[in-house]
């Protein structure tokens, strides 16, 4: 689906990403992992064209820099972590905006398909009861689900998530990731997500890209990448031991 070739980003003299190349196929859930400042979010920003880059990014053979924003939005959906809305739009209005790239014509009226896709997105994310509520009154979890519904309504083939579970309670983390897991199982879909939590990466990802100082430290299937050796090299600590210690707190309490 997506092919990234020699992606390089720098802010001034500071090199953020150095010659990154990878690709993702339909059915895969690629986890971008690595310590702070490794360049995970910058990859997302480059794909969403939020930062200037050199190198090339292809979606199904077409160079992204040749694509119009609406063309791109019909294929790639992006869910970011920060949402601050200034006005009291309703949940439904925000979700319906996901259909923007699909509407055509000068005074584009919404089609039957727009309505169906919006309803479906509201339903699967559990936002149907809150559809007429102002987004200013939502909790963090509800707001994140609203934007997930928006990106579902957008109906892309590739979903890109930048720390989708940040600031979310455990229950919402679980809900959100399970929703995405169901979504990606339909044919021709793929997910790329930036995650900090290695547990979540291992539980939900099929593949991973371990980044370190803007370079790829390891790439491949999730089990190949998240090995003790790789993680220790990147995080400069025994990650496996740490994870075991964390878990043992709970197991000893149980006994």
């Amino acid at each position, binding site marked *: 689906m997506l092919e990234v070739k020699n992606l390089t980003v720098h802010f001034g003299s500071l090199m953020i990403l150095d010659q990154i190349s990878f690709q993702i196929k339909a059915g895969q859930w690629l986890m971008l992992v690595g310590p702070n400042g490794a360049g995970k979010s910058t990859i997302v920003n480059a794909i969403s064209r939020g930062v200037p880059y050199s190198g090339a990014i292809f979606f199904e053979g077409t160079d992204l820099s040749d694509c119009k*924003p609406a063309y791109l939005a019909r294929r790639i959906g992006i869910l*970011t972590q920060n949402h601050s809305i200034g006005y*009291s739009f309703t949940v439904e209005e925000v979700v319906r905006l996901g259909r923007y790239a699909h509407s055509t014509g000068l005074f*584009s009226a919404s089609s039957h398909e727009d309505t169906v896709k919006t309803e479906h997105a509201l339903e699967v994310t559990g936002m149907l009861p809150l559809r007429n509520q102002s987004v200013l009154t939502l909790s963090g979890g509800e707001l994140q689900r609203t934007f997930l519904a928006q990106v579902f309504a957008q109906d892309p083939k590739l979903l890109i998530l930048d720390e989708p579970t940040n600031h979310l309670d455990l229950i919402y983390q679980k809900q959100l990731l399970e929703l995405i897991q169901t979504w990606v199982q339909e044919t021709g879909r793929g997910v790329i997500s930036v995650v900090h939590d290695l547990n979540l990466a291992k539980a939900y990802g099929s593949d991973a890209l371990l980044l370190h100082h803007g370079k790829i430290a390891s790439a491949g299937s999730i089990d190949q990448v998240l090995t003790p050796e790789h993680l220790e090299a990147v995080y400069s600590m025994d990650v496996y031991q740490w994870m075991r210690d964390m878990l043992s707190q709970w197991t000893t309490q149980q006994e």
Partner: protein
Amino acid sequence: MKTHSLILKLSQYALLLLVTLCTALLCICVGSVNIPAKDTLSVIWDTLSGQPVEENVSGAVIAFVRLPRVLCVALAGASLSLCGCAMQGLLRNPLADGSTLGVSSGASVGAVLAIAFGISVPGVPLAGTMAMAMLFAFLSLMIILALSYRLDASLSTNTIILIGIVFNMFSSSVISLITSFAGDKVKDIVFWTMGSLADSSVTDVWTILGALLIFGTVILRYAKELNAFAIGEDNARNVGVDVKKVKLIVMIAVSALIGVCVSIGGVIGFVGLIIPHMTRMIVGPNHRRLLPATLFSGAIFLMLADLLARIILKPLELHIGVVTSVIGSFVFIFIFYTTRKAK
């Protein structure tokens, strides 16, 4: 829980139109001389259908003074409100407006420059002033936004207010500077500065109407995109809005419309701030309802403000900007405090 349909219903449009027309009629009838509604209607009918107007005082007052004035005021109110509304959506800030940001005063600089240097198009009297006002409105908007983005990319309320204050002061000092070096053009500049919608001609009516038809349609066309911007610029990009293109087009349309209004009626502060805010409270923030509704409410508001300016100290007449600024200051403080508190 209030629910809104996506667009205004036909009946809602009819109601808005009815209120607008009634307000217009009231404003034409009432003034230094009160004229009965029946006489007013018959004179308006004669004027619009091209028949000769009855040759008495009230006929002349209505046909040549009040009708053009009220129409001009209504159109300017609609235009300025629409511009304010578009800017508040685009910048995602309820305090953005031509007058708070300094776009209107930037337009005045252009107009004064045109008069001082005698920039004009032969045969079209106002064209030079107007073109310069439009150009300077656009340049001001570009400068203000470039400065604000450098300071903070999210364009917070504080940034907008500070940049606006600085730019307004800068513009007025530039105008003073031009005036002091203008020599024999001083008279023309002062005459323009003193000018208002009070002495509008039929030509002025057609000019604003033309501008509103062209640029207003452009702004209305981008209602969906403005919704996306109002939710967030990053989100707008993610759902497929051509962010740069839309921003540029809306900014051009807004500056052109403000430029036309300023060159004809001078700076009328706060209209674009008060009206969208109040209208948003009633119809919600969706620009597909909000933009058309502000057109009507802006017209109604400015006509009433003009009426107030005419009759409150009768026979003395206030500048319309005095009325809008007094109301506007209170609304500004109200918005500023409520949005601050919300954080």
